[in-house]
């Protein structure tokens, strides 16, 4: 394992401290419960909390700031934060308008955020709502499964719910618009290499020099199928096909896209992929309103990328274009 680190067990706290020290004007980090929160909290807007396992940097702490999250709760690498951590984040950022938890749909995260919300609601005066992001079309969504995973589409939920909260909407309105994003956002990803969990020290899976895993998540899980590597153009069309099969878009529909790197893939390759995706959308006469290219929701040091597509209406467009000022996303 080749990583810039000290001891694996100190990694998450050192990383968070290192992040807070880079942005001392806007962030506060509370190491006991690993909560990264805004320095200036507005008690009169809906509080937005997200989080999950670490290893997805800049998610989620990178999206704490004006127009997005109020706090991010950081679990260990690829492990949900505990109920107690989330509970403390709710308390530390409580507002007169209530709190919305934005949860990626994984059993661990759901169980911990649910239990924390129940604990907080047992206290007086706290109103806590939750939304579960499940944008990953690699996973079958059916009554018999836990449903789709939440991946990079979560960042669109942070952005749009964050803008609604900043604009003064009440808790149920913010929740409703977050759910509208969730209903309209889909992602699909692939890996060229496995990631290496620091505490484990060896790659979670191995791929031959000409192989990729198609349909991976963001935790080093193997994908749905192992295939030969294909060109950027073919990748773009495979990703888009999977997404559009689940979220049909007609000529003239407006969308936003995110070409998201998994950590070890350089911007160079992400822009090449974006070029292919953008040309494909143009050929389908789907109208592209806004594009995000970069590392937003990573899988430690995995090489690979995901494509996220969000179908927009006037409301979502306005909120997506509203200002946001965070370390990892600026509009």
């Amino acid at each position, binding site marked *: 394992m080749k990583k810039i680190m000290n001891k694996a067990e100190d990694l998450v706290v050192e990383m968070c401290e290192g992040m807070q020290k880079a942005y001392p004007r806007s962030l506060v980090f509370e190491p006991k419960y690993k909560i990264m929160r805004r320095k200036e909290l507005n008690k009169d807007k809906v509080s937005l909390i997200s989080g999950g396992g670490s290893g997805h940097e800049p998610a989620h702490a990178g999206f704490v700031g004006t127009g997005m999250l109020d706090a991010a709760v950081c679990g260990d690498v690829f*492990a949900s934060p*505990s109920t107690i951590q989330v509970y403390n984040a709710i308390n530390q950022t409580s507002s007169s308008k209530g709190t919305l938890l934005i949860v990626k749909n994984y059993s661990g995260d759901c169980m911990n955020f649910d*239990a924390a919300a129940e604990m907080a609601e047992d206290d007086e005066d706290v109103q806590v709502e939750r939304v579960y992001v499940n944008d990953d079309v690699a996973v079958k969504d059916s009554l018999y*499964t836990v449903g789709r995973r939440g991946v990079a589409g979560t960042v669109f939920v942070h952005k749009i719910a964050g803008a609604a909260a900043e604009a003064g909407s009440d808790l149920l309105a913010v929740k409703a618009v977050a759910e509208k994003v969730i209903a309209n956002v889909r992602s699909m990803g692939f890996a060229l290499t496995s990631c290496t969990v620091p*505490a484990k020290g060896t790659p979670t899976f191995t791929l031959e020099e000409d192989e990729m895993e198609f349909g991976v998540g963001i935790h080093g899980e193997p994908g749905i199928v192992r295939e030969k590597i294909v060109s950027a153009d073919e990748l773009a069309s495979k990703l888009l096909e999977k997404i559009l099969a689940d979220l049909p878009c007609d000529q003239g529909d407006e969308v936003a896209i995110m070409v998201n790197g998994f950590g070890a893939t350089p911007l160079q390759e992400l822009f090449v992929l974006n070029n292919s995706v953008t040309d494909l959308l143009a050929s389908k006469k789907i109208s592209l309103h806004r594009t995000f290219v970069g590392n937003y929701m990573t899988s430690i040091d995995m090489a690979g990328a995901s494509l996220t597509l969000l179908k927009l209406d006037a409301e979502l467009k306005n909120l997506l274009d509203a200002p946001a000022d965070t370390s990892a996303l600026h509009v």
Partner: protein
Amino acid sequence: METIKTSDIMRIINVMADVIIENEKPFCDLDSAAGDGDFGMSVAKGFKVLKAEWDDLSTANIGKFLRSCGMIITEHCGGASGPIWGSAFMSAAKYSAGKIELNLSEFAELMQSAVDGIQKRGGAKLGDKTLLDALIPTTESLKQSALAGSSFKEAFTIGARAAVEGAEKTKEYGATKGRASYVGDRSISYPDAGAMALGIIFTVIAEKF
């Protein structure tokens, strides 16, 4: 009638913690096949804190002891394991509130309440390829042993075997709960990490009892 006391429960939990901490890496490896490879770390983390704070745990009665374990586990076990193992301990603590000894039948009921706690929190059932596929067979086996009038030692030995068999069977299930579900049929032929772990833990507990 044979009973176990608070101190016996403490010994059992102590063995459990040791097995979990010793097997941190193998348990992670079990989770790598179709999961995300962190299971060993997630559980070990909570049980390391448990050992570190061992002397401060309440020993007033079984319920209080299990509750103080449950609080630590809920706070310090990462991932799904915190609420799963935490709710198991909290629910078992509720069952044993105020009790300072348990006969085998009562112990089986305590295990049943752990199962109930896990199911209430996570919604999984037998066959969903989770640790319940080891825990439920063990609990059923303990109930049978109680009816048959077995000793704790016998019951634990047979109960552990039930966990190992249940865990083995998870190889055949396509997962529906937890991260293994994301790889669909590719998780077939890999057993569930949590279930395998319980098989190992219960086997050592039975040996050392």
